[in-house]
């Protein structure tokens, strides 16, 4: 019996393949779980905030208070404090960004859903692309295409010789590093977090069902650690949504500023 386990199949650790979920209906290839979750997040966020904001009362109900809390966090602590003057233009985008990312991240620990859509790199790519286009567009609109590009390539107030080093770095930062890090940071965090949970939950499951008796004793530890990590994941999920939105706001603020 023991031999069978050790020599035979043994524990198969979760891998990147665990993220490739098959289509829900076999004949609709694109309709996978993350796709469904993303649409679900749109519905959840829309319904929650629409209901919350519907009355727009001076003395808010509990629902309105909850919605307003999140909204004013994005509006005041992210948009206003970072972008400053004229921040209201960007509040809808930043607010959508934050709630969309946060909800999809949190789906990773919501029972039965339990999959962070942002661990599929396509979604972060799209969001980073949006942010990328927006902050460049804002910069170009504000300063004109020529001056904007010139300020990026040749940062004002720097000795000419330094440009040999600085120009490639700056250009790479603005056109490659920023969108890539923005999307990959979110993706990698969600991916790794989900993988980590899989390791402990599946490991515990394996120890409980498939393994030697002594191993069964350790199964609860594995599950407990899985639960602890779930709380940790909750923190990471909130943090990543915050960071994505904060960085977008910072990039916009940078593009709006007269000097980089």
């Amino acid at each position: 019996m023991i031999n069978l386990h050790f020599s035979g199949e043994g524990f198969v650790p979760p891998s990147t393949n665990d993220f490739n979920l098959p289509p829900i209906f076999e004949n609709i290839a694109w309709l996978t779980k993350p796709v469904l979750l993303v649409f679900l997040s749109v519905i959840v966020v829309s319904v929650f905030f629409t209901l919350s904001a519907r009355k727009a009362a001076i003395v808010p109900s509990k629902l309105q208070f909850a919605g307003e809390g999140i909204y004013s966090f994005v509006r005041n602590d992210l948009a206003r404090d970072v972008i400053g003057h004229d921040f209201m233009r960007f509040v809808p985008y930043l607010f959508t960004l934050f709630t969309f990312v946060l909800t999809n991240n949190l789906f990773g620990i919501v029972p039965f859903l339990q999959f962070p859509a942002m661990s599929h790199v396509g979604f972060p790519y799209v969001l980073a692309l949006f942010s990328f286009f927006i902050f460049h567009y804002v910069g170009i609109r504000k300063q004109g295409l020529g001056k904007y590009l010139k300020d990026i390539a040749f940062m004002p107030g720097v000795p000419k010789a330094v440009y040999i080093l600085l120009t490639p770095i700056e250009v790479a930062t603005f056109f490659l590093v920023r969108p890539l890090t923005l999307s990959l940071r979110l993706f990698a965090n969600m991916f790794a977090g989900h993988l980590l949970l899989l390791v402990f939950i599946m490991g515990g499951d394996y120890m409980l069902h498939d393994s030697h008796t002594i191993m069964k004793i350790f199964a609860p530890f594995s599950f407990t650690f899985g639960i602890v990590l779930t709380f940790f994941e909750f923190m990471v999920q909130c943090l990543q949504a915050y960071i994505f939105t904060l960085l977008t706001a910072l990039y916009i603020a940078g593009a709006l500023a007269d000097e980089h």
Partner: protein
Amino acid sequence: MRTFNFAAEAEKVNPLIPHTAELVVGAIAFTLLFLVLRKSVVPMFEKAYTARTEAIEGGIKKAEQAQLEAQRALTSYNEQLSSAQGEASRLRDEARVQGVAILEDLRTKAQEEAARITAAAHASIEAERQQAITSLRNEVGALAVELASKIVGEALDDQARQSRIVDRFIEDLEKSK
């Protein structure tokens, strides 16, 4: 299941390569959410903010106004009070002065009256005395004349007679009174 996993391991997918479907879905879903939030959430929350700010500012302004009014009322009351107090003390002083004047006046009048009465009394006493003197003088003269005639008319022989005469004279005097 295991065999599936092993088989999949062979054709490992690069997690950094996005599915085209997910790019499209992500873009559509995000845009959809953006439109909904921009249309029906952000304006409503902003409306609530503005209304709240106005309500608070209005409340503060109202309170400030009320305070100002109260201050003004207090000042005017204080002024009125102090002026009333001044008025009262002025009236009191005036009354005191008037009282003193009245008292002085009365005293003077009383003294004058007393002096007048005294003078009148003196005058009447003097007049009466004059009258008495006059009448006395007349009477004494008449008496003396009468007495002399009686003394002369009767012989004054003896002591007894003399005294009888005098007694009778006195008696007559008393009778005539």
